[in-house]
């Protein structure tokens, strides 16, 4: 299986994530789509790391996973507290900071 296949798959996965962020209005679904995009980037990292025979790429993926875990913890805390105050997780209705 050549590298292009993995990169094409990664690009496809990333695009699906982008579509999700752009068209869905539920904050938690948007969150999941961000995870999709992170996974796509990770897949590209691992594929290129294998291609080059250099495990640094895998270490990067390890760090990305850590930051993703931190991001999920903070993001969900924010979403839950927004829901407590406004009773909605629709991103179109949470627009008090809009100018």
């Amino acid at each position: 299986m050549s590298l292009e296949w993995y990169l094409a798959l990664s690009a496809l996965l990333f695009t699906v994530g982008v579509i999700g962020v752009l068209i869905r209005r539920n904050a938690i679904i948007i969150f999941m789509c961000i995870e999709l995009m992170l996974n796509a980037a990770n897949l590209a990292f691992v594929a290129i790391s294998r291609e080059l025979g250099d495990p640094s790429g895998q270490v990067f993926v390890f760090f990305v996973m850590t930051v993703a875990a931190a991001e999920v913890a903070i993001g969900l805390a924010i979403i839950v507290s927004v829901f407590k105050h406004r009773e909605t997780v629709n991103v179109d209705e949470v627009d008090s900071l809009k100018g």
Partner: protein
Amino acid sequence: MEFAGIKSLIFYAFALLTVASAVLVVTVRNIVHAAFSLMITLFGVAGLYVFLQADFLAATQVIVYVGGILVLILFGVMMTSGRLQMRIQIERGQLILGGLVALLILLLLFGVISNTPHWEGIKDDGSTLEPTTRTIGEMIMQGEFLLPFEVVSILLLVALIGAALISRKEVRDEE
């Protein structure tokens, strides 16, 4: 070449599984179904990591993403979908515009992939899976990635404390 044929068949199966369930995450109406589709996607990516001989990352993917992040997301779903069962509607204009932007991004990515020279493909000699855990561990704990590792652990600690602080119950002082 019987072995290679089966291998590429399994690769296609994993790729299809991953992309199809990713599409389901985006399109499905029920948010819990979306979360479970995301689980299938994450498992599919873990399978692809095995294909790329990244066994440590495959295990980490399952443990951290499926075991940690996904459970956290499900908790988020549980805590935010209370009495008002929210309708998840997609506006038509947004769909068209979003699809257009995503198509542009996809074309850009494919253009970059196909126009970059000297990618000959993975030299797949059908060798056995070599464990990568030791290499990665040595790179993190003794090699050049020690400082990033410490920084990222502090980041994680700060993020967790911050998350606890944000989501705690408001305590009013009794005066």
